[in-house]
């Protein structure tokens, strides 16, 4: 079965409520980057996407042959937009995020496709140029906040180090900036706690520090890989709210990778559903949740228990996601699909238009 968690009904927009779009509100004075303001959508060049991933393919050479962990994945993120990426463990979401920020661990490698940031390719940049992209233009947040912080340095030192790596600033100015950052993310008594060590903070506080670190050089895109999974449920909501607020205020786009549909429903503008290394459905959050088009997504949404409706049994999707060594031919979902037909076994479907979303399913193929 799936380990995707259901969204809370209350988080979904009510019918008639305006869709959140990726367009920015007017520029906000920015403590992260004084003297600059965020370009508006028109300045950014008519909705040119901030991040454009085209036909990305990630391979792992192993002794059993070459495994394709991410197979022909394409999507775009507009400036300031929050794109959720959901899928079961092993679907390829984290690998995609790692590839974008250039931290794919060998022997994994990008075997095909392009990653384009602000019109320039970043997928095979030399080491030093990629280092400058990281932190400054793309930031990342990982799952375990305690493991993400060096235990031997105070958080102030780690913040100052990050700030001074990317922005020309004196030690004192960087320290002031670090204090502002800590206050922004909601650390109480920041002036005192800036010299504390990571183990002196609780889990929620640590993740706030991590967010501050990731935003320190004000990147335009943050890749958040399961940012709330390791936290208590009560803290999760706080962190998500914080992330959402900061990103809206400073115009940072977010690629939110998670298996928690509730987080997606509350935070994301659009959502991409991944399965076996491919995107099977992508579209505005409300549409995908209310009216899923791909049988896999339908199965996921159908497995959510409902307070309002009576049901005899929850819908289950038979079987489990295939291992990388045994991906079925044609549509990878076909062995588990209850609407499979002949074409599904032989040909791999592309993402076809289906209402406001797109789904990789032959059921939605345009009629010839």
């Amino acid at each position, binding site marked *: 079965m799936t380990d995707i968690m259901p969204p809370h009904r209350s988080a979904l927009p009510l019918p008639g409520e305006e869709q959140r779009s990726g367009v920015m509100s007017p520029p906000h004075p920015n403590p992260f980057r004084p003297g600059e303001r965020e370009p508006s959508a028109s300045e950014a060049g008519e909705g040119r996407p901030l991040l454009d991933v085209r036909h990305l393919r990630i391979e*792992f050479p*192993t*002794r059993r042959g070459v495994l394709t962990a991410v197979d022909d994945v394409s999507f775009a993120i507009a400036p300031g937009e929050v794109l959720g990426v959901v899928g079961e463990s092993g679907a390829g979401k984290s690998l995609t995020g790692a590839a974008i920020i250039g931290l794919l661990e060998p*022997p994994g490698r990008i075997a095909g496709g392009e990653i384009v940031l602000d019109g320039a390719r970043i997928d095979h940049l030399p080491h030093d140029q990629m280092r400058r992209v990281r932190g400054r233009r793309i930031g990342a947040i990982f799952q375990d906040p305690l493991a993400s912080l060096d235990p031997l340095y105070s958080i102030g030192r780690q913040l100052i180090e990050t700030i001074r790596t990317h922005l020309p600033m004196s030690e004192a100015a960087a320290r002031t900036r670090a204090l502002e950052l800590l206050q922004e993310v909601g650390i109480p008594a920041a002036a005192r706690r800036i010299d504390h060590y990571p183990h002196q903070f609780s889990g929620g506080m640590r993740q706030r520090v991590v967010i501050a670190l990731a935003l320190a050089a004000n990147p335009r895109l943050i890749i958040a890989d399961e940012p709330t999974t390791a936290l208590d449920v009560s803290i999760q909501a706080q962190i998500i709210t914080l992330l959402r607020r900061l990103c809206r205020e400073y115009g940072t786009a977010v690629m939110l990778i998670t298996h928690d549909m509730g987080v997606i429903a509350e935070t994301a503008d659009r959502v991409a559903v991944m399965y076996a290394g491919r995107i099977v459905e992508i579209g505005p959050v409300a549409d995908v949740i209310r009216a899923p088009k791909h049988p896999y997504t339908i199965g996921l949404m159908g497995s959510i228990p409902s307070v309002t409706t009576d049901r005899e049994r929850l819908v289950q999707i038979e079987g489990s996601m295939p291992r990388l060594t045994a991906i079925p031919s044609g549509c990878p979902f076909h062995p588990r699909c209850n609407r499979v037909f002949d074409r599904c076994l032989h040909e791999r479907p592309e993402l076809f238009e289906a209402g406001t979303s797109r789904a990789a399913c032959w059921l939605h193929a345009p009629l010839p």
Partner: protein
Amino acid sequence: MSTNRVAVALRHSWDSDLAYSFRHSPYAMAAAVVFLLCVGSSTFAPWVAPHNPFDLGQLDLSNSLKPPMWLDGGDAAFPLGTDDQGRDILSTILFGARISLAVGICSVLFSMVLGVGLGLLAGYVGGKTDAFIMRVADVQLSFPAILIALLIDGVARALLPRAHESLAFYVLVLSIGVSGWVQYARTVRGSTLVEKNKEYVQAARLFGIHPLAIMARHVLPNVLGPVLVIGTIHIATAIITEATLSFLGVGVPPTQPSLGTLIRIGNDFLFSGEWWVTLFPGIALVVMVLAINLLGDWLRDALNPRLRT
């Protein structure tokens, strides 16, 4: 039923990852071949060796201090030369390797049994027993093994002055074994603590199954891998320790020389130019230990789940 499970487990693990890793590591294969060669030739030394160096009837002093056969004055009957008593170096090496290996393997087995047993005890019983055992382990760990081995050997030597010669082997095994139990105990204790808190153990307790039986059936298989790695490398260390003790004169008696004793004997001839008496046993020792270390290294990497592709 359990033997069936063991057989399946064996087949499952040995037929895939471990055996694959072995087949594709030239070092491991070469090391295994060398090691088997050493074990085989030394175990069957009485039949394999060209001479019997300890049969006084066979020795002829006119053969003494002959150089290896490829040098002037060498004799093909004594391929690696002879020592001052006319003993064939190659044969003494084979017999010596036998003692070295025997002491090494026996002491490691002793160490393993002692360590695994104490580790299980400490982990399962917990409380004061655990604290006591671990305290002793900590104290012992701060002293190097060789010192502990020396001490036990010295004490035994003092306590049993006459019987010492014939008991030397057992004293050595005991002293090296006692000096090395801690590493096993710690690993096993760790695993025991993890398993102890699992629900099936508590359930089995409710059923009245003896807890030690459960620990043996479930903890031991989990711990087998690391214990095997530690044990392999420990054999190398034990052989070196025994060689060192024998070199220092407090190991096996000269009537049953191990490779260390041979090196010590040969050391006296270093300055007069008869280097082969000490060098060849030395090379034999190093080759054997190196092969074991290579195997141990390979085993550790092969069993480490994090390094698997």
